[in-house]
């Protein structure tokens, strides 16, 4: 037990920040031009949210779920596992989140979601913009090369932020994206151990996730009945 307390967070980090970043550039290169398409898709969704105040929900949830499955398979199962002996567990976490969202998409009764609770919706939009633009820009600012930045909804932090954004925008129960919150915690700790400020975006999103839970409890709102 005494031994256990002698460990620091950094003792568990088995690769350097540069090696982690290289993983992202190799991943992005391997799926090019998908990152460009997902960026365009993300921008269109944002426009749809703001302009129409409604969204074609079933396919959107399905796409997000597929992205979780894909990232679990390609990023964690094939790439991250090269440098982290525990990557397999993360792959499973991502598959579980994918399956959870897929089941939630089957539950939807309508194709179009109408938004309620404007304030939460705005925070959801901010998170969406964070995944779309702020996160990659912040990464570049901290020295990541262009091709190593988080691709919208195709890299781990980005998809987790997008999923929590959806919870807020659509007003569905935060439990549906619990694995996303778990990943954000792991990501925060990973960057923290590296001494990198990139721990901030996942950490802030995690706080917002906690806030979404609290709001839901306070308002006693269930899942959005329209979806």
């Amino acid at each position: 037990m005494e031994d256990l307390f002698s460990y620091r967070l950094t003792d568990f980090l088995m690769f350097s920040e540069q090696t982690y970043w290289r993983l992202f550039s190799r991943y992005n290169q391997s799926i090019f031009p998908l990152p460009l398409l997902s960026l365009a898709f993300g921008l269109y969704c944002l426009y749809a949210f703001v302009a129409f105040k409604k969204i074609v929900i079933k396919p959107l949830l399905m796409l997000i779920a597929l992205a979780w499955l894909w990232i679990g398979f390609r990023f964690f199962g094939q790439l991250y596992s090269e440098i982290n002996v525990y990557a397999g567990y993360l792959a499973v976490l991502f598959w579980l989140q994918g399956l959870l969202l897929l089941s939630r998409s089957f539950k939807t009764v309508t194709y179009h979601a109408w938004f309620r609770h404007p304030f939460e919706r705005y925070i959801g939009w901010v998170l969406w913009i964070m995944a779309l633009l702020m996160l990659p820009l912040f990464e570049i600012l901290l020295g990541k090369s262009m091709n190593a930045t988080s691709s919208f909804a195709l890299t781990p932090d980005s998809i987790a932020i997008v999923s929590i954004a959806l919870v807020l925008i659509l007003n569905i129960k935060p439990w549906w994206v619990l694995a996303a919150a778990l990943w954000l915690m792991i990501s925060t700790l990973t960057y923290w151990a590296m001494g990198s400020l990139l721990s901030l975006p996942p950490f802030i999103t995690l706080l917002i996730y906690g806030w979404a839970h609290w709001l839901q409890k306070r308002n006693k709102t269930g899942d959005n009945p329209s979806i």
Partner: protein
Amino acid sequence: MPSGYSISRRQLLKQGLLLGSIAAVPALGSQISKRPIITKPIPTSGQPLPIIGMGTWITFNVGQDIEARLKRTQVLKTFLEQGGQLVDSSPMYGSAEEVLGFCRQQLGQRADDLFSATKVWTSSTSEGRSQIDNSHRLWGLDKFNLFQVHNLVNWRDHLDTLFNMKAEGRLQYVGITTSHGRRHVDLEQIMKTQPIDFVQLTYHIDNRAVEKRLLPLAQDRGIAIIANRPFSGGDLFDDYEHQPLPEWSHEIDCHNWAQFFLKFVVSHPAITCAIPATSRVDHMLENMGALKGPLPEADMRKEMLKYVSRL
């Protein structure tokens, strides 16, 4: 002498570890510096070992990334050119063993002098055996110089396996490792009771806990000591690098903090070698500087300690 140095001259002579008796042999294939490198004998065999080795935790875990693998090949090439031999790894270090195998292959005969040291790290005895086979495959070796039980995990069974391998001529040396000052009581028992050749533990200028019991015991029992984390995982640079080196550091041929830290570690009579890890060729060149020139003697070691404690 600092506390914990209560060893007799006879014991020192027995192990050939008096600084004056350190063998000096020309650097292997060195084009850069013709100065002799410092070696110390492995107590159980007398085989001379260069006092600076190389670790691979984090630094060699780069996966399949070919660009990064080629960079690490340059790091290993520099290490060998400067006269280094002992390279330490473990199945715990992700892809490090596989990357080392890649680097060895790239360097071909130039890597023939490498002293291979890896570990077995699993709580299962049978899995340990397949892990050992896997390490041979990953490094591309038929026989390792040194196999160590990593962090004392399932040490009884793994030591049995390794002693058998040694008896059958499939392994040269057997060792055990710990780090960060953990499980020293157990380690002491193992050192007293098991016929091991090597112990690997943490020793650096800011963590000298092992000076009290384990280092004298190693000298007494004729066990070689590998000092891991000689830079405290890099923390020593964060703590001291912004400060000037003492003026007298040139007397022991220390031109940067890396050499200062390393020469402090390897000048302890019980330490056979230190294994700093780096991902950079320029850092490797700095570190390998500690393989040459005079080592600090007891008085100078005291000065070194006094200097860093004032910073």
